């Protein structure tokens, strides 16, 4: 079958699954009356928040209850298995079709295939900024080129694995069908995002994944913290989306089109000069769209939602906030590479913000105690790397890092979910330790992931991260400062990841006794995806080995595959090979140092961190409280703009708007009184005047009528006199 012509099916499968779930799910998986949780405290650390009361229950289930204190214990319905089949199955179908389409794409002479389903927004002519007429038409169209092919494979592949994992993880949750419905819906929107052939359709997917993120973060909606986190995610995203829309409209106004192919043609045609001198329209456009990306991909300043998003179930964190949704921003900027090539200033801003975010998040991750928080900040930090790569012009490297990061980050999140599952809901690493032998599969898969992320050669993370560091150093748009920041972040990354590993798996067990009794390995439906992802973490990196190693073309596939998309004249760096080697060795050494330091501090001599903590309490406090950024935002925007703006608006509403209304009322009354005056004096006056006038005229006649006969007689005589006088004188 011609997969290329059927790429429209790829998003449709998960949409069908979502529709089935959300419309009919209640029938398939009828819920018992939900017991509202007695959620002991609302400690944000706990995803599940049921503390110890469930441990008191006598369970015959192999799985302990987790994640549903807010929803009540739920015995799986007989048709739940159907859901387990349908939803992951849909994603699997998408994956199969994606793989087939990509395979067929690679056989095409030119690796581009664009199909158009139907016209969504009909052609509307409008004036561009330069006065020409353009037509605004948005098609429901799909573009399959190397970039989107990488993305669909990542989304569907890793999405499928996570779906499988989630069937086990969410087995005892009340909202099983709802969860999978949302998850499938998310996959649909993400696929729409990456397959769209124009910015508007991309934005549809963009918004859609934001919506699903909100729905899934707030999945345990009985918990206030979950709902708040969902709202925060959505609102912060929205702020970014405003920038995106403005950028898109600016693009329409300047370029007259939003379709990728046309935009790229226009931008690469040489019509627009590279904006080195100042900030022109294109810079504004690229900055606005980048602002949107900071919202979606959790960069400074709009990253604050991602740590809070850990309120959602772990598979959600894995899929959305590690592998796919947060990478949407990276994808979008990579897609707009032609634009960013023309705006070096914006690219510099992108790189700087990426680097800054990376190091900021890493510093915060150093001292967090919640296992998922560490991973969340790690995600922010790694995304920073990707933006750093984008900023220095190494677009394929960013996508490569996205690719490898999806593997090991999803692995780490799912692994942490497995740990939490084993620990009956405990997420605080201070109460873990020595779990290595108790949950072996989880342990060694996470070990692979941690090694990968730390950047040890041979595993995926090394190749992509190292390439980023090299590009930061050597690219004409890069700088040594950026490289240094990246290196420092890499050191910290290795350190905090291995801090996590040591605190969780090695050393003395600090596990609470009642939890320790129930520690058990997860079922295979959960561990199998972990193994697959671990394999991926190892192997994926070999697709993009450094040219330095001279391993042959097969090991540079990634770069070659993505080359036509970015159409960059390969700017060869003038740095000698020795520089590259030395940098590479330096980064490996730093990573190794970080790992061993973590081992030393947290396994060998755990008392030292205590001492460090004692001596540097203020610093620790700042780092632990995330540099007080959330508090700052609260002050500035929530209270400042939000409540302050609200009170200003309230005043405005009371004074001016209500004043206007009251004024209108006063005006009405006033005009009524004027009318009354008019009516009384002028209209009635006219009437009265009429009567007065008539009386005035009748006065002489009244005077004549005296009632006395002799007066009448007099008039008779006068009349006769006149009469006769006339005739006599005639």
């Amino acid at each position: 079958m011609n997969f290329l012509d059927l790429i429209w099916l790829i998003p449709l499968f998960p949409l069908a699954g979502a529709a089935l779930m959300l419309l009919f799910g209640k029938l398939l998986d009828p819920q018992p009356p939900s017991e509202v949780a007695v959620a002991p405290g609302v400690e944000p650390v706990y995803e599940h928040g049921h503390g110890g009361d469930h441990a008191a229950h006598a369970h015959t289930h192999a799985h302990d209850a987790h994640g549903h204190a807010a929803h009540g214990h739920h015995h799986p319905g007989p048709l739940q298995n159907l859901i387990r089949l349908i939803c992951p199955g849909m994603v699997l179908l998408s994956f199969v079709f994606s793989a087939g389409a990509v395979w067929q794409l690679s056989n095409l002479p030119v690796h581009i295939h664009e199909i158009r389903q139907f016209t969504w927004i009909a052609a509307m002519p409008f004036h561009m900024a330069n006065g020409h007429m353009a037509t605004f038409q948005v098609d429901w169209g799909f573009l399959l080129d190397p970039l989107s092919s990488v993305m669909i494979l990542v989304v569907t592949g890793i999405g499928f694995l996570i779906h499988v994992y989630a069937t086990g993880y969410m087995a005892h949750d009340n909202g099983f069908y709802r969860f999978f419905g949302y998850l499938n819906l998310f996959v649909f929107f993400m696929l729409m995002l990456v397959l769209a052939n124009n910015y508007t359709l991309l934005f549809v997917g963009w918004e859609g994944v934001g919506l699903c993120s909100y729905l899934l973060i707030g999945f345990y909606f009985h918990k206030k913290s979950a709902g708040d986190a969902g709202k925060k995610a959505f609102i912060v995203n929205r702020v970014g989306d405003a920038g995106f829309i403005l950028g898109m409209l600016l693009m329409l106004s300047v370029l007259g089109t939003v379709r990728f192919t046309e935009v790229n043609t226009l931008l690469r045609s040489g019509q627009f000069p590279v904006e080195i001198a100042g900030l022109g329209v294109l810079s504004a456009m690229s900055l606005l769209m980048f602002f949107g990306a900071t919202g979606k991909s959790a960069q400074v300043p709009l990253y604050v939602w991602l740590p809070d998003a850990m309120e959602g179930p772990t598979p959600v964190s894995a899929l959305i906030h590690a592998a796919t949704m947060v990478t949407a921003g990276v994808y979008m900027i990579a897609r707009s590479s032609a634009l960013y090539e023309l705006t070096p200033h914006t690219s510099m801003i992108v790189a700087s913000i990426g680097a800054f975010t990376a190091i900021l998040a890493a510093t915060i991750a150093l001292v967090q105690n919640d296992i998922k928080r560490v991973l969340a900040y790690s995600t922010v930090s790694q995304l920073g790397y990707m933006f750093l790569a984008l900023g220095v012009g190494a677009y394929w490297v960013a996508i490569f890092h996205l690719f490898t990061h999806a593997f090991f980050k999803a692995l780490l999140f799912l692994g942490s979910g497995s740990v939490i599952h084993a620990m009956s809901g405990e997420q605080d690493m201070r109460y873990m330790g020595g779990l290595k032998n108790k949950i072996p599969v989880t342990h060694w898969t996470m070990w692979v992931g941690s090694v990968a992320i730390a950047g040890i050669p041979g595993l995926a993370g090394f190749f992509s991260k190292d390439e980023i560091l090299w590009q930061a150093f050597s690219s004409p748009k890069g700088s040594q400062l950026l490289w240094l920041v990246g290196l420092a972040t890499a050191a910290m990354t290795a350190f905090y990841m291995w801090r996590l590993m040591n605190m969780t798996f090695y050393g003395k067990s600090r596990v609470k006794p009642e939890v320790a009794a129930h520690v058990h390995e997860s079922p295979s439906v959960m561990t199998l995806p972990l193994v697959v992802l671990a394999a991926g973490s190892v192997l994926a990196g070999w697709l993009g080995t450094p040219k330095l190693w001279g391993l042959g073309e097969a090991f540079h596939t990634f770069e070659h595959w993505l080359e036509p998309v970015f159409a960059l004249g390969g700017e060869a760096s003038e740095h000698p090979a020795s520089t590259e080697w030395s940098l590479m060795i330096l980064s490996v050494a730093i990573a190794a140092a970080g790992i061993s330091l973590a081992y030393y501090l947290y396994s060998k001599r755990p008392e030292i961190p205590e001492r460090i903590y004692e001596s540097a309490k203020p610093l620790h406090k700042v780092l632990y409280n995330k540099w007080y950024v959330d508090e700052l935002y609260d002050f500035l925007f929530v209270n400042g703009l939000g409540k302050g703006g609200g009170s200003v608006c309230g005043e405005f509403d009371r004074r001016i708007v209500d004043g206007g209304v009251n004024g209108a009322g006063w005006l009405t009354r006033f005009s009524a009184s004027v009318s009354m005056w008019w009516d009384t004096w002028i209209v009635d006056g006219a009437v009265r005047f009429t009567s007065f006038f008539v009386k005035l005229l009748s006065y002489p006649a009244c005077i004549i009528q005296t009632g006395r006969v002799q007066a009448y007689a007099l008039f008779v005589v006068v009349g006769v006199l006149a009469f006769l006088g006339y005739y006599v004188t005639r």
Partner: protein
Amino acid sequence: MHPVTTVHYLALSAALLLIGTVGVLTRRNIVIILMSIELILNAVNINLIAFSRMFHHVDGQIFAIFVITDAVAEAAVGLGILIALFRNKETVQADEVDILKW
């Protein structure tokens, strides 16, 4: 002295007419007014007789008879009204009977 012609009679009649008119218009006492009306009627009669004499026929005189008849009837009725008025209003002054005014 000029011989007395019809003109003298006409002048006399006119004078009497005017005297009677003055009386009607000027006096307040209704009885006097009625008497003044009699004067007027007599003036008319004189006129009629003068012309009857002038044209040598008796039609004038016959008309004068009718005038006298009319004067009689009118005087009778008029005085009857006066009595009725006096009974109701206790006055015979024409000025004081002015209810029918605006």
